[in-house]
């Protein structure tokens, strides 16, 4: 469950937490686009280290590291698959093959990293406020924030269910691949059933508190752009511009230039 840890918001304040979520999302999008632009190792490495100052400014290093550790497993799979398939289909060879496979998994890590920072530093309330002020219908906003809010609850519940089934002799790590997948049935069914039950209960509770009674909603707080938000806008646009410029006008050094010829 460690991947979830990296997306769990904790109520603290920092300059990063106080940024407008819309702008933070703009920044994440810029990061996303620029990351997708490159398949070379060097620029991706730079992109990986780019958000580190934000992480420290927000004081979420521990959670951030945990989410990276969680992403590492999937990143390894991405590496292995890319390596094997590119090798057999002869898309790349030698250093280029190595670089391509590493870059693909690094790209995934960079994406997880930026989204993780966004969710770690943005409270669900802020997020829904941002969505609402972007004229997203409130039903969707509510559904979205509820989903985000229930992730940790669900993760905790999954843990309890796992304990309960382990106490009945279930061994998750036993058997071949298919058996292991099947081992998760006794965990998934109670989890899904209870999630559905909970959603029905939530709906009833909302109805009884007159949810949707007035069509025009007002908010106590409104989001307003501050100077730091404009700084982030500038940064995001700059990031995008530099990324595009480097991509199309500057030759990017590859790993092959630094490595001796490789045997594959």
């Amino acid at each position: 469950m460690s991947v979830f840890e990296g997306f769990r918001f904790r109520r603290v304040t920092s300059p990063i937490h106080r940024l407008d979520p819309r702008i933070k999302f703009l920044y994440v999008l810029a990061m996303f686009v620029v990351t997708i632009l490159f398949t070379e190792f060097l620029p991706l490495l730079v992109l990986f280290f780019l958000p580190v100052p934000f992480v420290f400014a927000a004081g979420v290093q521990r959670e951030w590291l945990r989410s990276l550790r969680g992403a590492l497993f999937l990143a390894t799979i991405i590496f292995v698959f890319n390596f094997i398939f590119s090798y057999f289909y002869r898309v790349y060879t030698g250093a280029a093959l190595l670089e391509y496979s590493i870059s693909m998994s690094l790209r995934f890590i960079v994406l997880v990293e930026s989204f993780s920072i966004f969710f770690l530093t943005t409270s669900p309330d802020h997020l829904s406020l941002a969505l609402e002020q972007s004229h997203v219908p409130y039903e969707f906003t509510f559904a979205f924030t509820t989903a985000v809010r229930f992730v940790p609850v669900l993760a905790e519940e999954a843990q309890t269910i796992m304990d309960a089934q382990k106490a009945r002799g279930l061994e998750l790590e036993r058997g071949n691949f298919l058996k292991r997948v099947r081992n998760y049935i006794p965990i998934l069914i109670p989890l899904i059933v209870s999630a559905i039950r909970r959603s029905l209960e939530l709906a009833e509770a909302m109805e009884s508190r007159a949810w949707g009674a007035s069509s025009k909603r007002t908010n106590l707080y409104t989001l307003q752009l501050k100077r730091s938000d404009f700084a982030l806008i500038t940064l995001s646009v700059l990031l995008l511009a530099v990324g595009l410029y480097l991509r199309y006008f500057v030759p990017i050094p590859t790993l092959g230039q630094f490595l001796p010829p490789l045997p594959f």
Partner: protein
Amino acid sequence: MIETKDIHFTYRTGVEALKGVSLAIRDGEFVAIMGQNGAGKTTFVKHFNGLLKPTKGEVLIDGISTRAVSVAKLSRKVGFVFQNPDHQLFSETVEEEIAFALRNFGFEEAMVEKHVTWALNLLDLTEYRKASPFMLSGGERKRVALASVLAWDPDVIILDEPTIGQDHRQKEKLRQFIVQLNEQRKTVVVVTHDVEFVAECNPRVILMVDGEIVADGEAKKILTDATLTLSASIVPPQITQIFHNLADFGLPSDVIDIYEAKKILSDRLMEMRR
């Protein structure tokens, strides 16, 4: 025999749930672990079948450390019934639900059949054999969960809050059932804050406050101790409260059993009538 030696447990969130707990539960004992919410009761008993391993200290089940064996292996000996049956029910029929653990423990099919029938009978569930556990009422689901653990006949049975959501009749049945298990030399550990239930059962009571054991002894002694119960945020049984309030009339202050209370009162009333 369950032995814990000065165990500490800290959750990943940094919450220290157990702060040095030492306890020995002999075979065939009936123990109630009591205390307020968050006192560490459930955390503590989750150490008995190895679901949690102590961050410091050691838990021994029949002399074997829980660190040395798997949860599955320990569970064969120590059955744990979770508080919420919905956290474990997943099968299409009640029968399958009960057979699940038996198959995990490698019982022969003939034995599975035998144990399932026995467990269904034991908990009055025979008529629901082919029913879906999801269609049953809350109390029935709880009994299915209980049956699914008792089916493999573990030596130790841990019940986490067994009385929650049960009506009086079911509670009484549960009590008789526990007494019956206990007579078969099974060790029974109940985690609860249902004071009245404990008063009726009269087990050995272990009182926990803030991750530590503050009292250990007969229910009669602990539940009637006003300072102890106050410190653990539990209220003494109603009959004890009445007797405390009537202490001026010379009534004893250590009564938790209704029948005993009735006897004392009727003796007094008889005296007065004379």
